[in-house]
């Protein structure tokens, strides 16, 4: 039987079943939204909160419970339901107290304790955060992040227990995509240079262009990025092909070598097998169909055999408050600079800078 992430959602996964105390299911509770703590691992965008608040109001309340885990002290960490929490908070802020209590599925509080159980539980929570957000509208960047994080979490989980099946297939099943597409996400994550990753995040390039760019050597990508910055033109697959052609070493036309060197009998060395770290990059690409107007409508699956499994990435530890404060200090300076640059938004930037100052003080207290 394959690895069943759905079992985690029922509170009956392999981690939870390690002891009798962990065999309980999640229970439904109505929890004050003020007691719900967002997960710092939630990387999804939090857009359209006002629209969601209106929907919740129309529906007479949150109908789909959030998934939370107890933190102690009456607080609960949100695993799924960050937008619902914010929308409910907004309604409460508007004086609509009827929305203060939000339905939540709470993981069994009487669960197994101990460092290993806690670590496994943290892994499962992070996996659930991704797999329970399947209905959300996602950007290409979200999808790459999902696949990358899910891979790291599964590899980490494998250090504790056996999970049957190929990681790439498990990820594909959980994200509702194909193993080949997961291979593309991996290639983007591993090989795309930061500048293009940012563009993908900002939706300036699509997943197909990002993938093709990731197949270029990094120095060629850097040159390409520089060209894009200068021309400010959108990147197309045709551009990527041109950069690829430009990067290839010049070879004499077919037949010329035989005439001039008489090397027809020389047998070229066999291609070297791909190394573990080369991943999808060494795979040859199929030509991509191009419509007459030059716009990209689709891109092909990588040629077989499928890319090799990548080595696991180390999972991130929870961020320390001091590190968060340092990062936010930088951000606060940025907000103060923006005060002068965006005069029309000066008040907003000032409020943000103030909020950051208070947050930094709270983190360092």
């Amino acid at each position, binding site marked *: 039987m394959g690895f069943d992430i759905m079992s985690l959602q029922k509170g009956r996964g392999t981690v939870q079943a390690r002891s009798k105390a962990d065999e309980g299911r999640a229970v439904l509770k109505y929890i004050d939204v003020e007691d719900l703590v967002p997960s710092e691992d939630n990387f999804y965008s939090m857009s359209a*909160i006002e629209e969601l608040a209106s929907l919740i109001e129309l529906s007479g309340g949150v109908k789909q419970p959030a998934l939370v885990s107890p933190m102690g002290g009456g607080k609960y960490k949100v695993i799924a339901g960050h937008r619902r929490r914010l929308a409910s908070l907004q309604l409460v*802020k508007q004086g609509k107290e009827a929305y203060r209590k939000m339905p939540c599925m709470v993981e069994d509080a009487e669960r197994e304790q101990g460092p290993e159980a806690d670590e496994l539980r943290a892994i499962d929570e992070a996996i659930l955060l991704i797999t329970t957000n399947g209905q959300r509208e996602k950007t290409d960047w979200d999808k790459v992040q999902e696949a990358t994080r899910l891979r790291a979490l599964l590899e980490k989980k494998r250090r504790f227990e056996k999970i049957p099946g190929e990681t790439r297939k498990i990820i594909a099943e959980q994200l509702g995509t194909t193993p080949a597409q997961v291979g593309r996400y991996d290639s983007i994550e591993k090989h795309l240079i930061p500048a293009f990753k940012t563009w993908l*995040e900002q939706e300036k390039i699509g997943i197909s262009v990002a993938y093709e760019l990731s197949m270029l050597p990094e120095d060629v990508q850097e040159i390409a990025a520089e060209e894009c910055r200068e021309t400010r033109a959108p990147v197309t697959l045709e551009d990527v092909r041109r950069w690829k052609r430009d990067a290839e070493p010049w070879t004499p036309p077919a037949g010329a070598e035989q005439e001039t060197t008489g090397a027809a009998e020389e047998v070229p060395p066999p291609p070297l097998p791909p190394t573990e770290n080369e991943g999808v990059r060494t795979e040859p690409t199929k030509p991509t169909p191009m419509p007459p107007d030059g716009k990209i409508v689709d891109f092909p699956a990588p040629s077989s055999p499928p890319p090799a499994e990548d080595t696991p990435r180390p999972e991130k530890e929870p961020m320390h408050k001091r590190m*968060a404060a340092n990062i*936010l200090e*930088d*951000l606060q300076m940025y907000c103060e*600079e923006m005060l002068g640059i965006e005069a029309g938004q000066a008040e907003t930037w000032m409020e943000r800078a103030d909020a950051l100052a208070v*947050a930094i003080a709270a983190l360092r207290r």
Partner: protein
Amino acid sequence: MGKVTIETLRALVVATNSLRFNPAIDPDTADSYERLLVGLRDELAKEIE
């Protein structure tokens, strides 16, 4: 400012949690600050390199 990364966004979440669950900060104030920081987080994720 340096490049905005996922760490910047995580730092903002850590910050909002510190505000909300800080007994020294009034819950209404924490709420308005959280809105500001969530707005900033979304803007950074979309628009800032």
